[in-house]
C-alpha cells in the first residue's frame, strides 16, 4: 500500500488508517514534498516516512509480529500528545560511577554536563547537524533497514533531535556513560533517537536506565544506532522498569567493523508492552557479538525479544542468551534469528533461550531460527520452556527451606545466569536486589 498526500486527503477522517494518520501528521509538521534546498536530515526523514507508509504497522498477519500485536497498544497513544505531566524521577542509578546524562523523551537535559575526557563527545544530533553535517550524514540511518522495520522508520521520520555520542579513535573511556531516560508524554507517542559512534580502537561502556515513572500510559518508540569501528569495543546495558501502562518499542541497530566487540545486556523488568528489536550486523571479519537478555513479565505484561544477528562476513563469533520468567497472565515472546550468509565461513554462532512459566494463564512463545547458507560453520540453538524444577524444589525443601523461600532461590538462580554477565558491578548488585524484590512478591 502506497500512501500519498492525495489519497490521505480524500478519505474522511474517521475512516483513515493509522498509517494514513501518521503520514498526515508528518505532512502537517514537516511537509511530504521537498521544498527548495534541503539537507540530508530532512531528505532522510522523507525517505523514512515513505518506507513506513509502504510497510505500514504490523498486523496479526505480519510474521515478525505474530505474537505481539503492537497496534493494540498503540491505539491509545497514536495522537501526538501535547499533554505533559511534571514528574520527578526517583532514580536509583544516580550512584553509579560514570558520566551521567538525563533525557526527557529522548532530548538531552542537564546542559551543565559533566566534564568529559578528551576524545569523548556527547551532545545532540541537531548540534552535530549544525557543526559537522557531513560527518553526521555518514552515519545517521545507515544501520537501519527501514523497509524491514516500520517502527524504526517511524521514529526516524519523526524524531526532531536525539542523543549523539562519539568516542574518537584510540580513546578508551574510563567510566561508563549513564543515561537516565524520562518520559513526560502521557497518552501519546514519544520517539527518541540515539546515535553512538565508537571509532577505531576505542572503547565505551553505556548504561541506559528507563526507571519507573508515575502512572499514566506512554508509548516510547525509540531508535538507537551504534557503529563500532575496527578493533573497537562497546559494552551496553539497558534496564527497563517503566510501569504497567507503558509501551516500549526498542530498536537497537548495531554495525560492527573488523575485530570489534559488542555486548548488550537487555534487562526488561517492567512495562505493559515491550518489544526489543535488537539487530546486529557484524560487517567485517573477526567480530565478536554478545547478546544477553532477561525479562520478568508479570500481571498482564507482554514482553517480546526479537533479535537478528546477520553474519555477513567470515570468522565471526556470536553468542546469545535470553531468559524469561513469566507469571500471572503475562506473555513472553522470544524470536531469535541467526542468519549466516554464504560468505560468512567459519562463523561460530550460538543461541540459547530459556523461560519459566509460573502460572497456567501465563504464556510463552519461543521461536529460534537458524538460517545458514555457508557450509563451514559452527552454530547451535536451544530453547527450553518449563515450570520450576519440582525435583530441585523438593531437594531444597528436604533441607528445611520453606517452599516460598525455595521457589525464590530457584528463580533468582535462574535469572542470575544473565545478571552475572553484566560487567558493571553497581548495576549487577542493583539487579540482584531488584530481582529479589520482584520475585518475592
Amino acid at each position, binding site marked *: 500500500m502506497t500512501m500519498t498526500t492525495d489519497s490521505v486527503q480524500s478519505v474522511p477522517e474517521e475512516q483513515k488508517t493509522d498509517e494514513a494518520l501518521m503520514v498526515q501528521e508528518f505532512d502537517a509538521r514537516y511537509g511530504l514534498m521537498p521544498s527548495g534546498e534541503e539537507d540530508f536530515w530532512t531528505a532522510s526523514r522523507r525517505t523514512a516516512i515513505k518506507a513506513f507508509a509502504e510497510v505500514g504497522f504490523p498486523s496479526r498477519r505480519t510474521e515478525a509480529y505474530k505474537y505481539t500485536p503492537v497496534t493494540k497498544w498503540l491505539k491509545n497513544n497514536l495522537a501526538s500528545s501535547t499533554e505533559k505531566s511534571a514528574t520527578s524521577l526517583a532514580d536509583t542509578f544516580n550512584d553509579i560511577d560514570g558520566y551521567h546524562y538525563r533525557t526527557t523523551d529522548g532530548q538531552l537535559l542537564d546542559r551543565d554536563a559533566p566534564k568529559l575526557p578528551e576524545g569523548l563527545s556527547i551532545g545532540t544530533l541537531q548540534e552535530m547537524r549544525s557543526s559537522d553535517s557531513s560527518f553526521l550524514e555518514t552515519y545517521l540511518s545507515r544501520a537501519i533497514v527501514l523497509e524491514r522495520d516500520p517502527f524504526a522508520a517511524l521514529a526516524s521520520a519523526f524524531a526532531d533531535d536525539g542523543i549523539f555520542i562519539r568516542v574518537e579513535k584510540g580513546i578508551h573511556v574510563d567510566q561508563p556513560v549513564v543515561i537516565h531516560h524520562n518520559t513526560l508524554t502521557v497518552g501519546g507517542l514519544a520517539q527518541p533517537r540515539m546515535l553512538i559512534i565508537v571509532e577505531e580502537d576505542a572503547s565505551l561502556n553505556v548504561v541506559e536506565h528507563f526507571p519507573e515513572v508515575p502512572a499514566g500510559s506512554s508509548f516510547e518508540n525509540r531508535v538507537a544506532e551504534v557503529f563500532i569501528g575496527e578493533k573497537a569495543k562497546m559494552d551496553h546495558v539497558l534496564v527497563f522498569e517503566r510501569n504497567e501502562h507503558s509501551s516500549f518499542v526498542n530498536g537497537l541497530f548495531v554495525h560492527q567493523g573488523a575485530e570489534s566487540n559488542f555486548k548488550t545486556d537487555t534487562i526488561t523488568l517492567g512495562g505493559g508492552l515491550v518489544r526489543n528489536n535488537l539487530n546486529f550486523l557484524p560487517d567485517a571479519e573477526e567480530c565478536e557479538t554478545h547478546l544477553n537478555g532477561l525479562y520478568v513479565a508479570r500481571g498482564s505484561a507482554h514482553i517480546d525479544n526479537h533479535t537478528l544477528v546477520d553474519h555477513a562476513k567470515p570468522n565471526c563469533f556470536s553468542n546469545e542468551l535470553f531468559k524469561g520468567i513469566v507469571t500471572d497472565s503475562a506473555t513472553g515472546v522470544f524470536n531469535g534469528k541467526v542468519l549466516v550468509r554464504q560468505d560468512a565461513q567459519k562463523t561460530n554462532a550460538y543461541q540459547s533461550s530459556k523461560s519459566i512459566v509460573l502460572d497456567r494463564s501465563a504464556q510463552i512463545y519461543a521461536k529460534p531460527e537458524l538460517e545458514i547458507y555457508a557450509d563451514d560453520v559452527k552454530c547451535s540453538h536451544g530453547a527450553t520452556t518449563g515450570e520450576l*524444577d*519440582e*525435583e*530441585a524444589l*523438593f*531437594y*531444597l*525443601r*528436604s*533441607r*528445611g*527451606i*520453606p*517452599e516460598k*523461600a*525455595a521457589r525464590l*532461590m*530457584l528463580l*533468582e*538462580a*535462574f535469572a*542470575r*545466569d544473565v545478571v552475572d554477565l553484566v560487567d558493571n558491578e553497581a548495576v549487577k548488585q542493583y539487579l540482584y536486589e531488584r530481582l529479589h524484590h520482584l520475585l518475592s512478591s
Partner: protein
Amino acid sequence: MLEIKNLHVSIEEEQKEILRGLDLKVGPGEVHAIMGPNGSGKSTLASVLAGRDGYEVTEGSISFDGDDLLELEADERAREGLFLAFQYPVELPGVSMSNFLKQAVSSVREHRGLDALSAGDFLKLMKEKAALVHLDPALKARAVNEGFSGGEKKRNEIFQLAMLDPKLAILDETDSGLDIDALRIVADGVNTLRSSDRSFVVITHYQRLLDYIVPDVVHVLVDGKIVLSGDKSLALKLEEHGYDWIRDESALPAS
C-alpha cells in the same frame, strides 16, 4: 524415634501399590539397615518418609518423635529433624553451596529455637563438617552439586547431614556408584555422626556398606513388606545366598 505401622503406599499416577503393610520401629540412637531386591519398595519408603510428592498413603501411620509425620510438609519434616540423603543428589545451577546451607541451617535453627549463627561461626561450622567427609572447603563458592563427581555428590549429602544435625537420617543407597575409597570416607563420616540421640535408616542393595556402617538391626524388604529382621549376620547371609531363599521361606509368591 520412628514408628511405621501397616504402611500402604501407591504411586499416584500408576495406581500401583508399592508398599503393602510395612511395619518398622527405630529407637533413638539405633542404626537400621533395610535391604531388598530391586523394585521391593526401598526408595519409595525413603521418598514417603521425606515427603516427596507423587505418593499416596492409603493405609497405616508414621509417627516421628511423637508427631504424625504424614501431617507435615517436606520442609517441616526437615526442620523437625528428619534428613534424607538422596540417591541422586540434585544439581542446582546458580544456587551457591554457601547460600543454600545458610538458608537451610537458619531455617532449621530458627525452628529449633536456636540463635542464628554469626557469619564467622557459620564458616567455622562449614569447615569442620566438610572435613568430616574430606570435602574441599572451597566448594562453598560453587553451585550445589553442579559439576561435582559422583563421589563428591554423595559426600556432599553426608556433609549436609552433619550441618543440619537431624534426629533421624535416612541414607538412600548412599553407596551406589561409590568406589571403595569413597565408600570408606562416607562411612567414616556417618560413623562419626552416630550418637545416642540420632537414628539412621540405611537403605542399600548390597551388604558392602554394612561392613563399614555396622547396623543394629537388618530388615529385608520384599514386595513392599518387611519379611525378615535380624542382626548384622543377616546381611552376610543375603550377600551369600541372594534373596530367593527368603521368598521361599516366607512363602511369598516369586515375582
